[in-house]
């Protein structure tokens, strides 16, 4: 039992993904219990990458369904190739064929466009199915997925039910922009990927960018950790720190200093306000400590008064007491 989880951990490392014990346990359980995994977390922490690495680990094809608002069955499941059907009809128009024959022809497998979901279960080997950003879809679509997720089958009115020969490994990712239905969550195992610890981030940087000097990786991990303590609109995630590390290497830097950080802040912060805020912090403190500025929102947040220290400015009830005494 123990070995299984360790194996997955090791395998994922080989596939270019470092996962901790908890993540590895979840991966192992999803395989053992045949349940999809719902991965949530901030953007850029490697939700999609985990599915990609898993497909490399298992050496199985990865099929990806990118969800967006308004996606429907014809984009996700299957569709008839109307244009080719029309062309076919025109092409055979002069041949005086039997009507039934033509009909059979144009509704054959040949004219069926298999969209990702149908594709993933009609393989003759297991696949890794990645349903990306599931929180973007409509409720109807989410309901349609339930059958696939629990039974690994799809019902199409024209065909009947298509059951997967080999159950796919399913990963769903979500940025939690809206709440998913209980029914969907119940069918999945839940995994939350948070920002990594500095040690883990350093290891990730070393794995992803082999040419990076050890010292630089450590520094980047530490500075990024400090920046994540600051209240920003969008916190830098692993993807950003990897980008940052790559750009620093391109610029030929071996270690961090305030000057180069100021020049490259826009790689870490994706909003103008965030950039300005970080810039100010570096300039005024002349270091990379990212302490909160005086009068900053964060400072107020941390020094929030306890109920004992705040004296009520006014207390109506006391006033009545006094009044009744008089």
């Amino acid at each position: 039992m123990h070995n299984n989880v360790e194996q997955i951990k090791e395998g994922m490392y080989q596939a270019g993904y470092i996962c901790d014990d908890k993540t590895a346990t979840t991966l192992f359980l999803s395989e053992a219990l045949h349940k999809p995994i719902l991965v949530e977390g901030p953007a850029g922490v490697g939700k999609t990458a985990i599915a990609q690495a898993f497909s490399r680990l298992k050496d199985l094809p990865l099929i990806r369904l990118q969800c967006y608002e308004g996606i429907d069955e014809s984009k996700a499941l299957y569709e008839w190739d109307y244009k080719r059907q029309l062309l076919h009809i025109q092409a055979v128009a002069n041949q005086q064929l039997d009507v039934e024959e033509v009909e059979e022809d144009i509704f054959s497998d040949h004219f069926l466009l298999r969209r990702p979901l149908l594709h993933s279960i009609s393989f003759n080997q297991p696949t890794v199915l990645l349903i990306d950003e599931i929180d973007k879809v409509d409720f109807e679509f989410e309901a349609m997925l339930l059958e696939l997720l629990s039974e690994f089958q799809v019902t199409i009115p024209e065909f009947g039910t298509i059951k997967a020969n080999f159950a796919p490994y399913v990963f769903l990712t979500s940025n939690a922009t809206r709440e998913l239905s209980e029914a969907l969550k119940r069918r999945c195992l839940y995994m939350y990927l948070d920002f990594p610890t500095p040690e883990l981030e350093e290891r990730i940087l070393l794995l992803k960018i082999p040419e990076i000097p050890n010292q630089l990786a450590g520094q980047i991990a530490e500075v990024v950790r400090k920046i994540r303590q600051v209240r920003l609109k969008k916190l830098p995630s692993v993807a950003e720190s990897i980008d940052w590390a790559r750009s620093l290497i391109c610029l030929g830097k071996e270690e961090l200093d305030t000057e180069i950080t100021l020049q490259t802040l826009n790689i870490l912060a994706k909003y103008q306000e965030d950039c300005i805020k970080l810039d100010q912090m570096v300039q005024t403190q002349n270091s990379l400590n990212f302490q909160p500025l005086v009068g900053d929102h964060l400072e107020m947040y941390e020094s929030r008064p306890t109920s004992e220290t705040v004296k009520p400015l006014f207390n109506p009830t006391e006033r009545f007491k006094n009044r009744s005494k008089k």
Partner: protein
Amino acid sequence: MSLFDTMQRFFEDLRREGIPVSPSHAEDCYRALTLIDWSIEDFFYASMFTTLVKDYHYKPLFDDVYRRYFKVPTDISRLQLFKLTSPEKEADTKAPGEMEGPPTSEGVESQGTYINKNASAPDGRKNPLVQDFRLDSLDDVRRMEVLFPLIAKRLASKMIIKTKRNDQNKVNFRRTLRRSMSTGGIPVELITQRKQKEKPVIMALCDVSVSVLQFSCFALALLASLEKFFQHVRSFGFVDEIDEITHMLKHADPVTLRTSVLKNAKVVGERGYTNYGLSFKNFLERYGSQLSLKTTVLIFGDARNNWFHDQSWALEEIRNRTKKIYWFNPEEQESWSTGDSRMKEYLKYCDGYFEVTNLLQMEEAFSQF
């Protein structure tokens, strides 16, 4: 006590904290536990977390209960833990592999109770969802804050459904024609345009005096987080003077809001005692010209007017100029209009009123408009 009992109590406690643990979650959890090595904490924790918790916002609550049950000094193994907590020994000496098997379906079904909404723990702690807004300790406030993003999210998804219904509208000619190509030019399927729903302009008036401050801040922060569903949300705080506090809501954090409103806005006038009448009057004078029939006014407060004149004519005038007025009162309905509460007078001019004593009721009230 057997392992099974311990687990059942663990699930019960989770439900009491507000985490919905259904029988099928419990079953998954048992199945997962039979598969992993208990001697490594991370494995044990992860298999419970992944099967029981389906929303990140529940994590702090889950960790809390988990710590009470399973957190032990590292040198004691998890197996021994069950021995320690159990008076009887027979059930626990088994190795994890031969644990009494995944519980039978009857066992699982018998515990099919969901969150008991009014249950309170033996130590007097309440499910933060039904915790009263009048809080004495900051700990309670924090526990409530943990749930806050969850409620905002849940509410937002409810509102999305509402805005998407009813597409009995004009035909979208272009899309219908394109779709008809597949049926040889015959428009079998009509595609209609989605109606653009008019979003209301919200003006929220909040009593921010100490007695209801907690409640007001939660309400305002929740409102701010739902901003995208309204065309415009403007918020005003008042005690006996009224001031706009919209800009403070940008970060929508109930904790900082409490302090920053009192610090940075002019909400306290000459006397410093809550005065609804004067506040309404001032609001009408200063912002009356900006009211329109698109505006919905929300009032948060207990209507306790400290025996000042209620000046309900001001509210009536506001009513005449706006679309709707809703009142959210943090007191129970029985105590409305008792003592110095002028609820009865003000109610005449409200289109709706809600008793909102806890987060659950607030969520329900909010989902109605």
